């Protein structure tokens, strides 16, 4: 079943993230694809993540297809204008890529080419509209396409954004612009997430909760202080601390698995998106502990 069919059928979907490497040595990345193949429903292929230049997302999506892993093309608006974005959308589609995640993209100042000119000719909401138009046979300027796309398009949302109201307004704009599914920024407080879900459930879209594995109490504190829109509650930090250095990662995996199980069992959302950030090999372990394998 395709990723789209899985989500639409109401089955709890699982996606994970593959970050293309910087350079032509793709052995490790292919190894990660190998590990994830047959276990997850689709893999997000990041687009110059954190504004750090890497192999293009489309190229790696194509490799994923060849490896039997359904890709979700992450597309940011940072590096291409509307002509480049649309050309790549058509190009990716003819290569067999069917899912696209439309995002604005981290600013170049976060990355490794700080002198680059940031583009942002369009942004996430407008990119979603572009995809919707192309699915209906038109480019952004209203010209007819010789052959439309049939993308399953998604977007991102940050349920713990502070203040939350502007974020929710943008979420609604993304729904109106045609987003069919959402992957959220990492969430750690399930009760608070339920409040967000109560709002999101008014709309006919699929929501996948973002899961980032906590490797240590230090990492949790770092994220609280420096990563926008992420709030790790104190009780989880205490749990990691109590586990001690040796057991911290294992505890982090348990926390992720516990959250996934709860989200699934209580039917809180439609799936999870696991961002392992360098620990792709741990994804099967998390899924196993969550009772998904």
């Amino acid at each position, binding site marked *: 079943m395709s990723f789209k069919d899985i989500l639409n059928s109401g089955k709890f979907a699982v996606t994970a993230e593959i970050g293309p490497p910087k350079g032509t040595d793709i052995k490790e990345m292919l190894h990660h694809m190998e590990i994830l193949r047959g276990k997850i429903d689709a893999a997000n292929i990041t687009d110059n993540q954190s504004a750090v230049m890497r192999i293009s997302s489309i190229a790696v999506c194509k490799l994923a297809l060849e490896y039997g892993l359904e890709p979700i093309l992450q597309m940011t608006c940072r590096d291409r204008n509307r002509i480049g974005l649309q050309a790549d959308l058509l190009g990716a589609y003819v290569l067999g890529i069917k899912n696209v995640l439309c995002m604005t993209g981290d*600013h170049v*100042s976060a990355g490794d080419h700080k002198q680059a000119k940031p583009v942002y000719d369009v942004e996430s*909401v407008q990119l979603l509209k572009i995809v919707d138009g192309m699915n209906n046979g038109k480019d*952004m300027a209203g010209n007819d396409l010789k052959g439309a796309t049939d993308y399953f398009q998604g977007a991102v*949302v940050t349920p713990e954004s502070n203040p939350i109201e502007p974020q929710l*307004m*943008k979420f*609604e704009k993304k729904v109106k612009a045609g987003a069919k599914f959402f992957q959220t920024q990492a969430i750690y407080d399930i009760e608070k997430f339920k409040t967000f879900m109560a709002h999101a459930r008014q709309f006919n879209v699929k929501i996948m909760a973002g899961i980032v594995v906590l490797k240590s109490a230090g990492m949790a504190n770092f994220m609280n202080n420096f990563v*926008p829109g992420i709030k790790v509650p104190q009780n989880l930090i205490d749990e990691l601390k109590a586990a001690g250095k040796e057991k911290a990662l294992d505890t982090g995996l348990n926390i992720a698995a516990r959250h996934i199980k709860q989200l699934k069992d209580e039917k809180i959302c439609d799936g999870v998106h696991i961002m392992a950030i360098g620990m792709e090999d741990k994804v099967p372990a998390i899924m196993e502990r969550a009772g998904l394998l």
Partner: protein
Amino acid sequence: MIATKKREFKDLMENIKDYKSFFLVGCSECASLCGTGGEPELAELKETLEKEGKTVTGTFRAKTGCQVLGTKVELKPFKEHLDKTDVVIVMSCGAGTQAAVEIFPDKPVYQSNDTLFLANMTRYQIFDERCSLCGECILDETGGICPVTACPKGLLNGPCGGTNDGNCEVSPDIKCCWVRIYERLNKINRLDDMKKTREAKDWSKSQKPRALIARTKEEKKK
């Protein structure tokens, strides 16, 4: 106004090292307010150049240095000084420099400043950028705060995921303009403006180089 910043003197020196005599042109408008092209700066550069063994044939502060005709007329009395001059150094903005290039077709013109942005002066000699001259203003829809300029990504439909407790992902020194817009629209009871989806900007409206004839036909004849 236009914000300008003095270049390092050694960089200016590197550009003008082959020449001996200079005429300095400041500006009484923005460059004076920025402290880059007023009387004190003209005097300072004159002194520095002379210390380096150069000759300064004259200094002059234009009323409005970007105004080509006006500045040309103002410079007429300086003809003698200018005839003895190898190079004109302009101490205003890039527009002032290019006015001088037009006024002095036969002389090299160099500039002592970098030109930064269209500026609001918030306190004496403290400037920030609030409008980037996009050619099609959307302030009426955004509570009078410009996201094209105040958001490093120029987003038109609300905050990105990087918005951080009211600050911008790019720097904690920048407030997230979409939180500012949200708060202001909330205050003036116009939150509905934020719910409208804004189309992508029409950048053809700011295709360079831009030109404008603001006067009417009749005036032109006169």
